[in-house]
């Protein structure tokens, strides 16, 4: 069905950014516009979600050019679910950044760039054209370069160089893949590609092209062996920025992989095995990396890598139940990972450091905040009935059905290491007494009340969302099941775009 308003979430953030540019250097006005814009964006996204949920896939032909000739935007259930999650995360981060960021960074355009980034994310989820997807990827990485270097500290620049080099490499692979795809099929529309690709004589070339996409999206979503840019760059920018990156950017890679490998390339045995091997190695390296880190944000960065492997494994098994698990994990992961980095930011305000060896005694001083954080940590680990637990059931179930016992083992190992490092972190940061001869630099205690609220509220919002996902798992499972069905059987998608 055609609906001309599906790009509304993109436009909300675009106009928020433009209005903020008009108020250049007026940081207080920008803060209000940012929070207000994100709230409007969230409402618009929820409206879009309920519409897609009731009426099925919506499409929009940009400039009124019919598909497959023009650029088409498609809102299916996977897209709108991610748009809603991104909006929730953006809302929380924009509240957090209005108090958790130095004025210096705001003066140089933090808020407009943040909204351009969110605009790019929404666009990437909604587009139905593979070259347009690339363009939105570029919007995302250019905004993220700026966010990462804003402030210009030496460590930040060092992290940004690694980040930029790897992401440009990823884009190059992605673009090369698109070029070959266009060369052999003559179309860029993903729905059109999905059946033109079957008529290509040279199926070997198609297989090789799909490897370009695996490498491109693999780098972006920090999959083994090209994940190392993530842990070496995500601990450098301010926590609000790291939360956006950690929660959302790697997940765009997973989204693109889900989309491309369900719609265009149907994974054959070779691709499935390749993805499975990558998933296993990603989980293992992420877990081992997390074990030895003492800086909280570095630890979280490795956990991101580790958990990307869970979703990759779901894609690799490529069946309805496995994809349900992957999609559910994606939903859970966006909420939790964003929150983890916000928590790291709160801890930094409370103690002035993020090194676990120098931290301690938080539970004694701030029991309520600690309990809120504990809730999020439990969700991450996957204590039933919280959100991290449910997707793993589906992954286990499918891995047993397909006799992937090694993956089951690795999945258990990854979950166990997650539990171990989180327990270690909890005992070191919250239970242990403050180490001797460490000076505490508590900025939080001296803040005004509204600042304290603004700092903890986003953690609360995301924790509530996580709790909702965990306790209301039945409806999330239903949505994941519908998404997985749409991913396996792409006919409704193709029909919505191209007609019959």
């Amino acid at each position, binding site marked *: 069905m055609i609906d*001309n308003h599906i*790009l509304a979430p993109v436009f909300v953030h675009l106009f928020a950014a433009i*209005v903020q*540019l*008009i108020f*250049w250097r007026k940081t207080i006005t920008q803060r209000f516009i940012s929070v207000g814009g994100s709230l409007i964006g969230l409402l618009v996204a929820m409206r879009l979600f309920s519409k897609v949920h009731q009426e099925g896939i919506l499409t929009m*032909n*940009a*400039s009124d050019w019919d598909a497959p000739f023009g650029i088409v935007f498609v809102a299916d259930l996977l897209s709108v679910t991610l748009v809603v999650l991104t909006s929730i995360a953006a809302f929380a981060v924009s509240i957090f950044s209005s108090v958790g960021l130095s004025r210096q960074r705001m003066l140089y355009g933090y808020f407009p760039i943040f909204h351009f980034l969110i605009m790019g994310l929404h666009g990437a989820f909604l587009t139905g054209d593979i070259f347009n997807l690339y363009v939105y990827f570029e919007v995302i990485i250019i905004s993220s370069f700026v966010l990462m270097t804003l402030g210009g500290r030496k460590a930040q620049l060092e992290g940004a160089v690694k980040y930029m080099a790897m992401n440009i490499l990823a884009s190059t692979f992605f673009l090369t893949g698109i070029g070959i795809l266009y060369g052999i099929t003559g179309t860029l529309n993903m729905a059109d590609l999905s059946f033109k690709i079957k008529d290509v004589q040279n199926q070997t070339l198609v297989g090789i092209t799909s490897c370009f996409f695996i490498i491109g999206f693999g780098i972006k979503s920090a999959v083994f062996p090209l994940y190392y840019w993530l842990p070496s760059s995500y601990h450098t920018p301010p926590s609000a920025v790291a939360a956006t990156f950690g929660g959302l950017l790697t997940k765009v890679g997973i989204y693109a992989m889900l989309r491309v490998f369900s719609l265009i390339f149907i994974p054959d045995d070779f691709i499935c095995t390749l993805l499975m091997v990558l998933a296993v190695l990603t989980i293992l390296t992420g877990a081992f990396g997390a074990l030895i880190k003492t800086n909280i944000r570095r630890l979280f960065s490795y956990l991101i890598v580790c958990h990307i492997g869970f979703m990759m494994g779901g894609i690799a098994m490529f069946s309805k139940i496995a994809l349900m698990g992957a999609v559910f994990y994606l939903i859970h992961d966006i909420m939790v990972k964003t929150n983890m980095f916000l928590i790291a930011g709160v801890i930094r305000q409370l103690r002035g450091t993020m090194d676990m060896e120098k931290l301690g005694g938080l539970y004694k001083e701030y029991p309520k905040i600690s309990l809120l954080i504990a809730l999020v940590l439990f969700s991450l680990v996957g204590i039933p009935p919280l959100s991290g637990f449910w997707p793993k059931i589906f992954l286990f179930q499918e891995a047993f059905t397909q006799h992937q016992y090694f993956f089951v083992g690795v999945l258990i190992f990854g979950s166990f290491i997650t539990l171990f490092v989180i327990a270690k972190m909890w005992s070191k940061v919250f239970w242990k007494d403050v180490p001797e001869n460490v000076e505490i630099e508590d900025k939080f205690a001296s803040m005004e009340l509204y600042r304290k609220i603004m700092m903890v509220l986003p953690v609360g919002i995301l924790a509530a969302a996580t709790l909702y996902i965990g306790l209301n798992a039945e409806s999330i499972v239903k949505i994941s099941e519908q998404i997985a069905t749409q991913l396996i059987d792409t006919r409704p998608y193709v029909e919505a775009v191209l007609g019959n």
Partner: protein
Amino acid sequence: MKSAILQTASRYLLPILLLFSFFLLLRGHYYPGGGFVGGLVASIAFVLHSFAHGTENTMKILRYKPLSLIPIGLGISALSVVAPMIAGLPPMTGLWFEEPIPVIGMIGSALFFDIGVYLVVIGVVLTILFTISLND
């Protein structure tokens, strides 16, 4: 740079180049040209002027900071993108006036998109170049 020839020439070139950039902007819908090239030519006009007369004097001609052109241009472009939605059409659809306007020709929402691009390009190029040249 003190050169009588350059100073005199740039005084005459500024309006001519600006006029040329407008010409490029307007013909851009069907022929080579458009907002991006037009904007570059226009900003070159100002850059040439700043070479001859110094950046401070060029800033005086401009009156406003070039930075403020960026949100204005982006706003015009973005509005021209969403304007068709009010008429119930998909975003970015070209809306055209019925009758052509003398000299300019047909006017449609695509022209406003190009004008937005034109302003953004001028804003960005001049902001970058003036920031560099004022620092030394």
